[in-house]
């Protein structure tokens, strides 16, 4: 590419706000034709938002997008496609009950006499399947194919609408090693045919292999760019991290006691090949760090007995859980604030009182079968007061409460049960700053009372400032453990992106 030629696709000063939160702030990106351009950053750095804007899924608030040096408006997916930009989604969007050819031409079926011309679909499909190196019949049912092959079909589908720019969002997240290599071969071959690829991945090693250039985002802003010869694992991590957290939340140190929760050689359904070992002590706050999809939620769900364990054991205060049911976990003193509070944490059409009393209803029952109305009322009154839940009344459906107050109701459900171990999955997702601080204070208060806390969080500040100890997971494995002294953003990112433990030690010292 000569300097005089404008980049194929360029974003200038893109800004996007969601309900007061700035997801992107003056972000720029320039991608040349025929390059593989990686975009990286921590969870929540703004990668997905940027890609959605480029693919026309959502419009930017400020800034411009240029194609071949001309300003264009990409305010719908159709428009973006018209400009040759296609997004290959993280979750595949194929109808698995239809065959390959029908999927490629879905919505654009060629017709003859008003009927679908399946012969033409077949002939055309074969052309695009060949481009992605697939030697399968267009008549094959998509549902019978592996995820890796389905991904190739997504790419073939994009090529069939003349896509010149393919945006791949975590394309390898569910691919095997072999499939990943096959994908890379296809990317190389597409590149040689002049197709441009914007590649998003958490897997820095893949980026070292495949990318021509890397743009790094941090907290919704440009953090830098690396050219082919500058790309290295260390250089990327260095750019992704680096923010001041001293102002974030100042927590007190407190007494740490005996081990309350121990997880021994646990294998989850999601990652049955990896064993997880970890311990949480009384009064200890253990952060569970990792990138999205590292298997943290699955691990917590398994400990809480929602998902069945493949093997291994879980003990509370030295006592092993016998039948791995959620009811038993609760009886043993495990409580969990799940990731999706609206689906898993709350019954939205019930009031604060009914939600709070639900897990303890059976324990508090009177006369064998009756709900203890007096206890319910006093428990919920106490929680509303102690946690400062803002609600017009204890029977107002929690659907109408703010995110922060809803989360307090979920935590309140478990506080009245006096848990020994509290598991929290993304405890402050989608709550405002004020409520965040209150939730941190609640967590701290519980730790002070001797509750062992294990919380998964994708927010680096939260992990860094709240944890006594951090356990980092990567693709279903615990890749390392960091004490408060060893704790740094670099160290976490190294482990979270699959860096070896030895590298971490040196990085943490440096």
């Amino acid at each position: 590419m000569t300097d005089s030629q404008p980049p194929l696709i360029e974003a200038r000063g893109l800004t996007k706000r969601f309900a007061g939160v700035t997801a992107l702030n003056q972000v720029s990106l320039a991608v040349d034709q025929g390059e593989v351009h990686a975009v990286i950053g921590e969870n929540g750095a703004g990668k997905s938002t940027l890609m959605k804007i480029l693919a026309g899924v959502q419009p930017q608030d400020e800034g411009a997008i240029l194609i071949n040096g001309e300003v264009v408006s990409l305010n719908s997916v159709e428009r973006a496609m018209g400009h040759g930009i296609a997004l290959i989604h993280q979750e595949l969007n194929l109808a698995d009950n239809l065959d390959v050819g029908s999927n490629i031409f879905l919505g654009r079926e060629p017709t003859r006499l008003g009927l679908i011309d399946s012969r033409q679909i077949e002939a055309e499909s074969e052309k695009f399947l060949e481009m992605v190196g697939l030697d399968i019949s267009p008549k094959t049912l998509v549902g019978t194919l592996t995820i890796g092959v389905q991904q190739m079909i997504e790419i073939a589908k994009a090529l069939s609408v003349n896509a010149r720019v393919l945006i791949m969002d975590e394309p390898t997240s569910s691919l095997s090693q072999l499939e990943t290599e096959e994908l890379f071969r296809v990317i190389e071959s597409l590149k040689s045919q002049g197709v441009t690829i914007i590649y998003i991945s958490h897997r820095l090693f893949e980026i070292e292999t495949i990318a021509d250039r890397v743009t790094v985002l941090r907290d919704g802003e440009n953090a830098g760019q690396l050219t082919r010869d500058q790309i290295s694992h260390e250089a990327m991590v260095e750019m992704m991290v680096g923010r001041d957290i001293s102002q974030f939340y100042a927590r007190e140190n407190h007494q740490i006691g005996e081990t309350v929760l121990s997880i021994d050689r646990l294998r989850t359904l999601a990652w049955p090949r990896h064993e997880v070992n970890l311990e949480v002590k009384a009064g200890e706050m253990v952060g569970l760090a990792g990138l999205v999809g590292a298997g943290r939620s699955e691990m917590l769900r398994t400990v809480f007995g929602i998902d069945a364990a493949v093997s291994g054991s879980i003990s509370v205060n030295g006592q092993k859980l016998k039948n791995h049911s959620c009811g038993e976990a609760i009886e043993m003193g495990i409580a969990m604030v799940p990731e999706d509070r609206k689906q898993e944490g709350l019954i939205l059409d019930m009031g604060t009182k009914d939600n709070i009393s639900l897990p303890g209803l059976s324990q508090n029952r009177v006369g064998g079968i009756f709900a203890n109305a007096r206890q319910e009322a006093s428990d919920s009154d106490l929680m509303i007061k102690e946690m400062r839940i803002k609600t017009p009344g204890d029977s107002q459906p929690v659907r109408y409460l703010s995110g922060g107050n809803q989360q307090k109701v979920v935590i309140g459900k478990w506080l009245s049960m006096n848990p020994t171990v509290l598991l929290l999955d993304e405890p402050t997702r989608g709550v405002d700053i004020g409520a965040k601080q209150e939730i941190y204070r609640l967590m701290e208060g519980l730790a002070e009372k001797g509750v062992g806390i294990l919380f998964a969080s994708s927010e680096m500040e939260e992990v860094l400032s709240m944890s006594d100890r951090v356990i980092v997971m990567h693709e279903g494995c615990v890749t390392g453990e960091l004490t408060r002294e060893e704790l740094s953003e670099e160290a976490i990112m190294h482990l979270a992106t699959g860096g070896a433990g030895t590298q971490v030690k040196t990085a943490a010292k440096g």
Partner: protein
Amino acid sequence: MKKALGILGLLIFICVATAIMSDRFLTEYNVENLIRRSALFGILSIGAAFVIITAGIDLSIGSVVCLVGCILPWMLIECEFSVPIALLSITGISLGIGLTHGILITKVKLQPFVVTLCGLLFYRGLTRGIVQDQTQGFRGGFSELRELSQGQLSLPYTDFGIPNPCLILIAVAILAIILLNYTVYGRYMLALGRNETATRYSGINTDKITILAYVICGLLSGLGGMLFVLDVGSAQPVDFGNFYELYAIAGAVLGGCSLRGGEGTIIGVIIGAAVMQVLKNTITLVDAIPTNIEYAVIGAVILGGVITDELVKRLASRRRANLQAKQTD
């Protein structure tokens, strides 16, 4: 409760309108008969309501009514079973049916619609096979047993009496109200009907609770079947209890149950079941309405009821939004 008042208004309106249009409506015979029929269908509707509250459905109610209704006289007359053994047997059959439905739905993870649709076909076919399509009756005997349905508690100083099925309904309703509103099991049913995932995350064995709902529905269908046959005196396996599941479900829905689950009051359901019966009675009595459009009228009334309910709900949520908008100003 507001919903129950709305449906009560509809019931009173239909009653008053019919009383004006037909002088046969308020006769002693008609009123007593109407109360008896309403009570019988009310029992079925309460069963359906429990299942609907857990976001399920039971299409087999009518066929269970047929099975129990035919098997009871068959056991007493053809097999010469004693009354206690016959009653115990039908209790066991209804309980077993509910248990089977519940287990197939929760453990085998089949859809309630499919399981109970198969039940609808299976129990009717089974009944016809067992009794060889012969009408089963009490042949004028067992009058003491039949008092359960035909008898009445006469009110002192009047000519009126409360039909026994109505007393049985009251007992069933009281138990159902207590179960649904004051026990932990009822709360679990309401919770799991609204959000099964969150209920499971609260440590509740949702499978057990779902099975309980189907068992209750099975038992009440059996009780209904028994009372129906004791009332009528004989049952034809081909059409006894035909469509009763639809009356039961319609009564529950009209009475405020949402098929999405988690909603409903027992009182509302009983009134809903009564509306269905009064409506049928109205069509028979009022000469201006031809009898052959019975189903069309019932269908239209149910549709009107649920449309009104939806509109009221929308109005309420709009009012709430306006209120919130005002508060933030």
